[in-house]
């Protein structure tokens, strides 16, 4: 047998809960500059299925947590933040969170993120691999109106799945009243928790920012509950793929625009042509043009026939051999019990039901453009 990937563990940063992951049997691998648990004893398949059936606890402390503290009014900070994203920031009500993405002058995506209106300031969560660049980007563009403060003394946990509410409510009962994309700052025995009802699995669930001093005890308290298991990055990836969610650096990056990526739902009316605050974000010319005329290519869901996964990098073709694009994420969906993928194809080939071919180990195999999510989402709206 050959294959597999190694990686240097030296020079990697460690999570605050590193020792807990090791004690839980986590297999630690390099990811985005950190030693991260890719799986625990259950293995990727069972961890995935457990999250969909009960509740899974993920340590996502590698992600960047940032506070945007207005120097003047909240409105000035929100408007300045809108200057970096094609997103309606001003319209987000207090206590609510929204998906956003930083664009560059060419209309590509620098990172995707979540941000929340916490009354007198904004709280932002960005991808681990981009966090230094994101903080520098925000400092460069927001400093007239806003203090950009990287939060480095908090862990970030995600509790996901149909029993996440019941589990977390034993610790903080008021989370039961939260709806999808609500945020709250709630006192607990583990320090003040910054909770959002959101996640990256397609399931109902929560993301919980907790002071590092209380993070281990909170994780232990949750893991001691019968319905909660520790879940690694492997299952996190298969869960988000089934939910049709983009992974930055794979499905979206500076070579893809938000419109090509099918993220037009993240560009609210006030920022579009004819809106109250039309344009005014990097790459607006391209993005508004693509909104009006349609993009040249689109991110689509893909279902390979048979059982062989089509992984990232798989080349896609028409039946007559015309090269179309590539798979950007692909693997096996444990809940859909079949291989699934996403990738980019020209708009004319993006219709659901279109049959294409993907080249796997030199063989062109049939693959059908399919609706996403592959697995129905269960957000508590």
């Amino acid at each position, binding site marked *: *047998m*050959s*294959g*597999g*990937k190694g990686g240097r563990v030296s020079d990697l940063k460690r999570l605050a809960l590193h020792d807990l992951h090791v004690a839980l049997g986590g297999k630690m691998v390099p990811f985005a500059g950190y030693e991260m648990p*890719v*799986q625990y004893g259950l*293995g*990727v*398949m*069972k961890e*995935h299925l457990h999250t969909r059936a009960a509740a899974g606890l993920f340590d996502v402390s590698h992600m960047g947590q940032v506070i945007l503290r207005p120097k003047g009014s909240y409105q000035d900070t929100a408007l300045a933040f809108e200057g970096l994203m094609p997103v309606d920031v001003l319209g987000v009500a207090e206590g609510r969170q929204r998906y956003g993405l930083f664009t560059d002058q060419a209309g590509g995506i620098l990172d995707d993120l979540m941000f929340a209106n916490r009354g007198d300031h904004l709280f932002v969560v960005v991808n681990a691999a981009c966090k230094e660049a994101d903080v520098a980007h925000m400092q460069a563009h927001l400093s007239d109106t806003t203090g950009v403060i990287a939060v480095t003394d908090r862990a970030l946990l995600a509790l996901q799945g149909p029993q996440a509410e019941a589990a977390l409510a034993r610790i903080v009962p008021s989370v039961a009243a939260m709806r999808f994309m609500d945020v709250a700052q709630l006192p607990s025995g583990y320090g003040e928790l910054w909770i959002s009802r959101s996640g990256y699995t397609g399931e109902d669930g929560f993301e919980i920012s907790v002071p590092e001093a209380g993070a281990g005890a909170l994780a232990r308290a949750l893991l001691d509950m019968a319905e909660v298991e520790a879940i690694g990055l*492997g299952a996190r990836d*298969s869960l988000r793929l089934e939910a049709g969610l983009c992974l930055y650096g794979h499905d979206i990056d500076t070579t893809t625009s938000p419109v090509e990526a099918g993220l037009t739902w993240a560009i609210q009316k006030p920022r579009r042509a004819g809106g109250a605050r039309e344009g005014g974000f990097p790459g607006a010319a391209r993005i508004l043009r693509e909104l009006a005329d349609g993009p040249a290519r689109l991110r689509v869901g893909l279902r390979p026939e048979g*059982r*062989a*996964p089509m*992984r990232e990098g798989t080349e896609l073709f028409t039946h007559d051999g015309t090269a179309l694009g590539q798979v950007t994420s692909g*693997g*096996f969906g*444990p809940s859909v019990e079949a*291989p699934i993928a996403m990738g980019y194809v020209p708009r004319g080939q993006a219709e659901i039901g279109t049959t294409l071919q993907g080249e796997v*180990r030199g063989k062109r195999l049939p693959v059908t453009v399919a609706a996403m999510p592959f697995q129905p989402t269960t957000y508590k709206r």
Partner: protein
Amino acid sequence: MKYTKEHEWLRVEGELVVVGITQHAAEALGDVVFVELPEPETQVAAGDEVCVIESVKAASDILAPVDGEIVEVNEALSDNPGLVNEDPTGTAWFFKMKIDDLAVLNDFMDEDEYNELIG
């Protein structure tokens, strides 16, 4: 049972050599979701990539351990790839080979040597 440094096991069955992957390899791969088997009656050389195993994590190859002819493949793995995780050294064999001289198997590791390799 003999072992290769590519984490395959070799078992003599009559005049044939049965090939599979070790428990250690199955655990390292994670949950297997797809197995691509070779065609029976294929002549192979040592080191040829003869099977593909796709796990939830990645694709890996099984290499022919010696020169010879693949005479039988385990079709049960096509329908139930998870067998590789459940019973890697038993029912989840991959293929059987006919080889010229079974004595070449003496070049491979025995169980103690293999256990030392995986430490």
